């Protein structure tokens, strides 16, 4: 009795019974061709709808402001205040090398700003469609509930990557514009050139993107529970904050390895030579676990849900 849309083997769809009163369908292309194209068409449409939306652009602009504000603030105050003192990691190094702006901005964005934007996007996935009423039209199209969840999650994951890249790339541009740029000294002491450093920054962006995938899965699940997108967004953002607080409490240390936020700031290992991959691997495994659990919960919930909005 579930309205789920299991994916039948190929060719099953072609066997719809012919009947007398079928309207002529001159524009329909051969089955296989039509199907191959449209599988990706929905994903493409999702990406276009997501990234052309004013809200998404505003979120990305806010993320872009972080490295810009950071670089400008350091540049303006650099004459009277010396390096060091209070501030996020790498802040003092910016004046020597503008390339550190990206790194500092990422460190600033990870605990709050990135989860905030990801929470908005992931919490909106299903609940946003439900509140607009477009969910019922997507489902009768029929998009298929499993496919819709996958496409929605892919969109949220892409937003994680784009959001992170915005911080990194805008940071590099702002840093290069306001500060001297030169070879970068790694945490392990060696010095690497710009090309090598760019590669490592991309690796860090990948690390941070992967870090946010678990949160996206939580947001997707929360989004299947309600037709009020703000509720799902708030729940997702609150969860990311709670996880970070629990991570910081020494009394709850035993929970730490299981928190999706535990490895969020562990990307500095990518600035060693040789690169220490242990955090990368542990983080990826942990996030995969969260994706599996919350993805399954979202599937279970969404495929049996009565769509009444």
């Amino acid at each position, binding site marked *: 009795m*579930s*309205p789920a*849309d299991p994916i*039948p083997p190929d060719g099953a769809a072609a066997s719809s019974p012919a009947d007398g009163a079928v309207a*002529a369908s001159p524009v329909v292309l051969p089955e296989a061709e039509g199907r191959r*194209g449209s599988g990706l*068409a929905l994903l493409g449409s999702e990406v276009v709808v997501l990234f052309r939306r004013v809200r998404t652009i505003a979120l990305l602009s806010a993320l872009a402001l972080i490295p810009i504000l950071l670089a400008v603030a350091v540049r303006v105050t650099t004459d009277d205040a010396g390096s060091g003192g209070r501030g996020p990691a790498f802040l003092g190094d910016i004046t020597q090398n503008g390339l550190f702006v990206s790194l500092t901005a990422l460190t600033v964005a990870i605990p709050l700003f990135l989860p905030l934007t990801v929470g908005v996007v992931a919490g909106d996935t299903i609940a946003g469609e439900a509140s*607009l009423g477009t969910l019922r*039209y997507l489902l009768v199209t*029929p998009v298929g509930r499993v496919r819709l969840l996958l496409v929605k999650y892919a969109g949220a994951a892409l937003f994680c990557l784009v959001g992170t890249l915005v911080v990194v790339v805008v940071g590099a541009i702002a840093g290069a514009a306001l500060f001297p740029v030169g070879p970068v000294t790694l945490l392990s002491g060696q010095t690497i050139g710009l090309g090598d450093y760019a590669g490592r920054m991309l690796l860090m962006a990948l690390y941070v993107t992967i870090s946010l995938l678990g949160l996206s899965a939580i947001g997707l699940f929360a989004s299947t529970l309600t037709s009020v997108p703000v509720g799902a967004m708030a729940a997702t953002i609150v969860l990311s904050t709670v996880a970070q607080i629990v991570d910081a409490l020494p009394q709850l240390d035993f929970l730490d390895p299981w928190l999706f936020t535990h490895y969020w700031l562990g990307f500095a290992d990518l600035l060693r030579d040789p690169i220490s991959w242990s955090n990368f691997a542990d983080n990826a495994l942990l996030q995969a676990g969260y994706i599996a659990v919350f993805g399954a919960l979202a599937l279970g919930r969404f495929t049996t849900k009565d769509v009444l909005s």
Partner: protein
Amino acid sequence: MSDAAEAGPDADLAVQTVGLGKTFGRQQAVADLDLAVPRGSVYGFLGPNGSGKTTTIRMLLGLTSSTSGSIRVLGGAMPDRARDVLPRVGALVEGPAFYPFLSGRANLMRLDSGDRRAPGGTRKARVAAALDRVGLGHAADKKAHAYSLGMKQRLGIANALLMPRDLLVLDEPSNGLDPQGTREVRGLIRSLADDGTTVLVSSHLLAEVEQMCTHIGVMSAGRLLTQGTLGDLRALGTHRVRLLTPDPDLARDVLVRLGLAPGDSGSAGPAPSEGAHVEADLTVEGLAPEAIVAALVAADVRVRGFEVSGASLEDRFVDLTGEGFDVAG
């Protein structure tokens, strides 16, 4: 009523439900519903607000699960065969819904891209054709939030027409449309029906249903009270004779002798010089109106006017659904 329950799956039916029921918590929204929508028909699905029409439509389209009974749409069991059935169904459910930040055209492109059977190569052309068909060609590139309710309604209908469909399910398609738009929608539905498309249209605009539907089902409080062809339903109603005569008392005596129960003359009486109205329900089977006139004349009643009116569909619905029905002016 229908004998669908005994007949089992029927190839001539575009939509068939057997014993369909849905409960929300303790509330029974739909109960024991045996819907039978013949292929090629324009089926008017009527009922007061909250009678379960939209819940039924949601179950037909696989949006909501049923708590009991079975559904077949275009020969396929729902919701199990949704993948095969739904591409052949165009739907407007509980009002149109769109992304307000996208243009009308972009909205249709978006929804069409979700349909695996809709070829991407013809998408632009099909979207443009659907927009033209509902008269939105000139407003296609306006953002949907700038659309009036009537334009949104048209866009919703355009969405149902993106692909050739075997069945259209239209929930209150005339909502928010001006009289001109209502006429256009009626014409559109008729032209689609002429092409062989089955149309299931829910409405509370009785006059409109009377004008475009071939079949009618009436719901109230979650139950199907009656269904059948428009003619069947009209025939169920009692006819009424109305007589204009200067001899009302004599006329009443004649009518009583024929087995009728004449009431008082209508409230809006004619001028006294014209005579009075005498009305009676035609409750005696086999009694032809002309026989009444003959009897009246034979009894020297001066008959100045005589008319037989069929009960309007509206009367039938008020009879069936009782008070509180949202009747169109």
